[in-house]
């Protein structure tokens, strides 16, 4: 077995993704022999499935609280750094309040935004994640449009 031939083989760019895929595959197969465990003490816990249906019009996303008055009770990592914790979760826009009084399926449409638990996480408590996420979209869009507009 000539080892030089092997080095030459892995130096081709089109081989690299395949090599990496196989390597990752081998690592992921280990998972079947390692017991995965689930810690019950999770951040931002959900209520049990279907427990809120027809009890609240914000069905799966009702976390309590009154808009602009009482903040919702959510469990975050560092409450001491978040002075307005739970207030965004409790907030509903006026059209959202109007709609939620009329239909019990309001929560499934995600129209409570801005406001609601997901917006609290995305804009406030983990806002830096969303900055990077939209930065990725921005950068890839720049690459895309530059390549597209300069392809002649």
């Amino acid at each position, binding site marked *: 077995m000539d080892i030089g031939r092997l080095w030459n083989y892995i130096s081709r*760019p089109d081989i*690299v993704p395949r090599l990496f895929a196989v390597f*990752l595959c081998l690592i992921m197969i280990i998972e079947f022999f*390692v017991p995965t465990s689930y810690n019950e003490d*999770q*951040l931002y816990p959900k209520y049990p499935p279907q427990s809120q249906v027809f009890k609240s019009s914000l069905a799966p996303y009702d976390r309590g609280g009154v808009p602009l008055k009482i903040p919702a009770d959510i469990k975050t*990592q560092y409450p001491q*750094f978040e002075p307005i914790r739970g207030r965004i979760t409790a907030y509903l826009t006026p059209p959202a309040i109007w709609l939620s009084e009329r239909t019990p399926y309001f929560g499934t449409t995600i129209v409570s935004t801005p406001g609601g638990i997901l917006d609290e996480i995305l804009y406030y408590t983990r806002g830096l994640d969303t900055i990077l996420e939209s930065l990725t979209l921005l950068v890839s869009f720049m690459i895309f449009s530059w390549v597209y507009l*300069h392809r002649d």
Partner: protein
Amino acid sequence: MFLNITSVAGEFYGYIPFGDIVLYVTEFSAISFVIALFFTLVVYFTKPEKQLESQIGGFDKLNYVSLEELKIRRLMAILCGICTAFAMLTGDLFNYALFLAVIGITNIGIVSAVKKEWVLNAAYYYGIIAMISTLPLFGGAALILAKTGTLSILELAGKHQDLLFQKMLYAAGMVGETGVAPFYAAKAEMFRAPGAPYILMIHLSSLLIVIRTAEILLTI
């Protein structure tokens, strides 16, 4: 002090809170942060190199970077530098994985403006690896979150749980994203594109990311 951690990174200087994501400064991360920002400034003020390609049986060819190409590549290099700098400070596993994804895509951006077939070929295969390695990175972070109930490095540092497999997954993601040893070929081809200071940004970011990932995996 509740957020004070002992780690391989040296003395703990302080933290900058953004809600759940707390950036923290240690000896190591402060130095890396300054290096990355300094190099970003260098990239901003430097003009790109010109490459002289010698040809067999003909005149030599001068490769230079046009103004339009320079603008986008400089922007990508600066974004890459800033992201590398802040990736040194972040104290959250998922946030760090996102930083890696942004750095990967800016690396593609630095070379994507070059209209040479072999450069784009290498960039394409590197992009494929970068896309594949989002699985181990984000998946590893999610498995750590499931097992320990937190993503914060500062919290994980005090818990001492057995996270060997999750760490392996996370490291595999980093290996793909930065192109460590056996998977270097696509990234090494990208370095050969003309336009020196921008290309070196790819180098610097991967080096700093490799060290920083090692530090994170030793700390948690």
